[in-house]
């Protein structure tokens, strides 16, 4: 059986090697979820990669929504119709969805509604590392935290049961290490999808008018009190050992802690919390009464610690608690075995004979780069050149979230501002005549629809001075090439419409909107300079498919024909490596060489703007 067949196998009872996110997708299938929606974001994206492929086969409706808020609203709609629904996103996505969430928690849900937030401690691919457990507290909804892929799958099913028992949305919180850990998962049977759709609730049940919201609030608090004492919930687990020490933990912290306790044979009992909002007080109080010394192991904010210290104080339990608030554990970046070991050893006063690992050696850095053939490289190259030609040196470069964030690095240096999805245009709408400044705005096609449109409306309305470069690569590239509103969805193309960026921008009233192919450097330069010279809000839609998608298509039918440098023609000026910086190019002696294994055959480097000496040609004889 292939991996995909196993993923949708109705019987289950198999041991599969699954990524945490794949395990969650399997859990969603096992739970009989009828509707799933998302906006892609690392570290949550792989859930969608699986569901996108299999949804139709299992009778589930799945969509990549325009943004996380709409994704939540779509799932909420399915829930009001009585269907189990699942919505998932990265941690900052929940900021976008939060406005709706804060009231959906009040109105409650009908079919189970589970909201997954994948947090990113250490910011492997994010702009911050906010601890989204706090959203559970803010919205007064349950928070469930798995530690391993197996739990990720199992807890999804529990989350739906809890959501339906109390008609409450449930926040399912993972972190990068849980979402991106791969280990053995035993699958279970698939529940049938409930098909009966009805909206037979009281007309006002999902209405948040203040008079109704006041009643909802009391209901919500009652539900949370009941959940805190619901003994049918079996998400918390105690692992007892001899000794007077106890540790309370959740998420991946449990894995590191367990390894350390076993490796050093420590006398520490563990209370592992899977339900971290509301805390089931009785379990924690019993644990604290048993062990006089409590170590709390959790990544990011002292979330459990704050609540547990309060519990101890309220119940006059005399216990010594070791955590972040007293400096035993850090509040920043993700943990690993060494971080947890240091904290535990200090708390317990252990002398652990650890040879310090050798310090890292200094190696030339290798930050992520735009791929060979990436159309964004050509766009950045041309915009930089246009600004130089027009002697514009005071434009603020306002960029956004996507692969093109990498344009901020050498050699393009295009990213004075990168904050959050859509902020590029919102920021640029602040370049109003009163301030006498201008900006150049970079925004991707997917980001434009996600959060950019209100900013453009505001920019046009207030007569801001900016040229917007829409980097339209026909996909949501950074998270793994998910479809966008402006390109036909290759899997579901019969059912969906394509939304034109050009007509959207024209409809808003952008004074000049032109489309250009960034591979055609000359034409692109002409259009960019023209827009930069035009007052008000202007836009160039730099339209060219993502190189990864293009490569895949080419490889399916033929092979990539690379370019090479003719040594006799190469003068060693190195302009191509310094200004264009394709990863396939490097310096050898006093010439430039192209690695045929990396070259994607886009041919942009052969244009005279990159190599004025015509030293780069297609290599028809390459192997």
């Amino acid at each position: 059986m292939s991996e995909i067949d196993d993923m949708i196998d109705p019987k289950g009872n198999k041991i599969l090697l699954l990524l945490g996110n794949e395990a969650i997708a399997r859990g969603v299938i096992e739970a009989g979820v009828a509707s799933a929606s998302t906006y892609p974001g690392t570290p949550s994206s792989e859930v969608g990669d699986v569901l996108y492929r299999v949804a139709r086969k299992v009778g589930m409706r799945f969509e990549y929504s325009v943004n996380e808020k709409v994704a939540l609203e779509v799932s909420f709609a399915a829930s009001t119709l009585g269907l189990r629904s699942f919505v998932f996103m990265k941690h900052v996505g929940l900021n976008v969805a939060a406005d709706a969430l804060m009231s959906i928690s009040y109105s409650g849900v009908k079919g189970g509604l589970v909201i997954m937030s994948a947090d990113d401690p250490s910011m492997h691919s994010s702009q911050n590392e906010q601890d989204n457990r706090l959203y559970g507290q803010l919205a007064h909804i349950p928070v469930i935290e798995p530690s391993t892929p197996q739990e990720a799958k199992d807890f999804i099913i529990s989350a739906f049961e809890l959501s339906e028992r109390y008609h409450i949305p449930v926040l399912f919180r993972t972190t990068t290490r849980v979402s991106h850990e791969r280990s053995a998962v035993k699958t279970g049977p698939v529940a049938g999808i409930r098909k009966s759709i009805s909206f037979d609730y009281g007309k006002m049940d999902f209405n948040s008018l203040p008079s109704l919201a006041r009643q909802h609030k009391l209901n919500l608090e009652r539900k949370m009190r009941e959940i805190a004492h619901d003994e049918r919930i079996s998400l918390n687990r105690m692992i007892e050992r001899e000794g007077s020490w106890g540790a309370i933990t959740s998420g991946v912290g449990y894995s590191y802690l367990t390894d350390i306790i076993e490796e050093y044979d420590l006398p520490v009992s563990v209370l592992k919390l899977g339900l971290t909002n509301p805390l089931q007080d009785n379990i924690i109080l019993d644990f604290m009464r048993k062990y006089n010394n409590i170590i709390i192991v959790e990544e990011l904010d002292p979330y459990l610690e704050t609540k547990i210290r309060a519990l101890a104080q309220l119940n006059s339990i005399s216990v010594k608690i070791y955590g972040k608030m007293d400096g035993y554990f850090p509040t920043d970046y993700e943990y690993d075995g060494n971080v947890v070991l240091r904290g535990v050893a200090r708390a317990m006063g252990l002398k652990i004979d650890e040879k310090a690992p050798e310090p890292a050696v200094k190696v030339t850095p290798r930050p992520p780069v735009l791929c060979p053939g990436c159309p964004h490289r050509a766009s950045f190259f041309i915009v930089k050149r246009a600004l130089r030609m027009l002697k514009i040196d005071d434009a603020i470069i306002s960029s956004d979230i996507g692969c093109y964030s990498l344009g901020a690095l050498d050699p393009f240096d295009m990213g004075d501002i990168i904050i959050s999805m859509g902020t590029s245009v919102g920021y640029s709408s602040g370049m109003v005549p009163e301030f006498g400044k201008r900006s150049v705005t970079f925004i991707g096609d997917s980001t434009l629809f996600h959060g950019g449109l209100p900013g453009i409306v505001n920019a046009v309305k207030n007569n801001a001075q900016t040229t917007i470069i829409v980097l339209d690569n026909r996909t949501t590239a950074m998270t793994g090439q998910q479809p966008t509103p402006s390109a036909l969805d290759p899997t579901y193309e019969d059912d969906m419409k394509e939304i034109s960026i050009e007509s959207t921008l024209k409809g808003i009233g952008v004074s000049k909107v032109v489309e250009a192919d960034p591979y055609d450097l000359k034409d692109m330069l002409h259009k960019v300079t023209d827009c930069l010279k035009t007052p008000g809000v202007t836009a160039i839609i730099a339209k060219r498919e993502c190189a990864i998608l293009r490569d895949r298509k080419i490889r399916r039918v033929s092979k990539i024909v690379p370019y090479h440098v003719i040594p006799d023609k190469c003068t060693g000026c190195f302009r191509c490596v310094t200004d264009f910086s394709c990863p396939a190019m490097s310096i050898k002696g006093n010439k430039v060489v192209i690695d045929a294994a990396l070259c994607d055959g886009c041919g942009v480097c052969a244009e005279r703007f990159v190599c004025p000496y015509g030293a780069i040609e297609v290599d028809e004889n390459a192997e």
Partner: protein
Amino acid sequence: MKMQSNVVICGVGGQGVLTAGKLLSTAALSEGIQVVMSEIHGLAQRGGAVSVDVRIGNVLGPIVPDGKGDLIIAMEPLEALRVLHRSSRESVFVVNTQKIPPVSLGIAHREYPSIESLVSDLKRRRTVFTVNALELARKTGELRTASTIMVSMASALYDTGITDESFLNAIKRLFPLRYQKANIEAFDLGRKEAAAVVK
């Protein structure tokens, strides 16, 4: 065979680092050995430094702590040096000598250091085996089998307790039918290369 093996696989995005990790992990599971692997996805689609941790044996934490890597499989020589602090003096390095110069070198008008200097630097500190996996992969007609060659060679030079049969099962499970033959051939080439380098 040790009760627990910590493997760090490193390289450049696009070289098949994830695939190598999945191959090793799937083979371990097929052998009935507990395994946990940690992946990093996202911003570095291609071209950035990437690494994957595979922990074989009775352990839960998905990250190999610094200094605890037993076997380092490096798809690129600079990347081998970059993860040096994750290994110990007892670690075994298996290094693909295919060089991929970071763009930052070109921008600074610098050349990639010679493979010989990088490898001898590494050899002063660790047990190192090298192979040009990309050249070997050419023989299979599919350059992307280089990562399979590396896993095969490394698992022959450092015993993880996984049998050939389990690796072959894993290849059949992970690769589409049209790539299976090339990968089985690559596995064979890796084993032969390992036998050659220990002579």
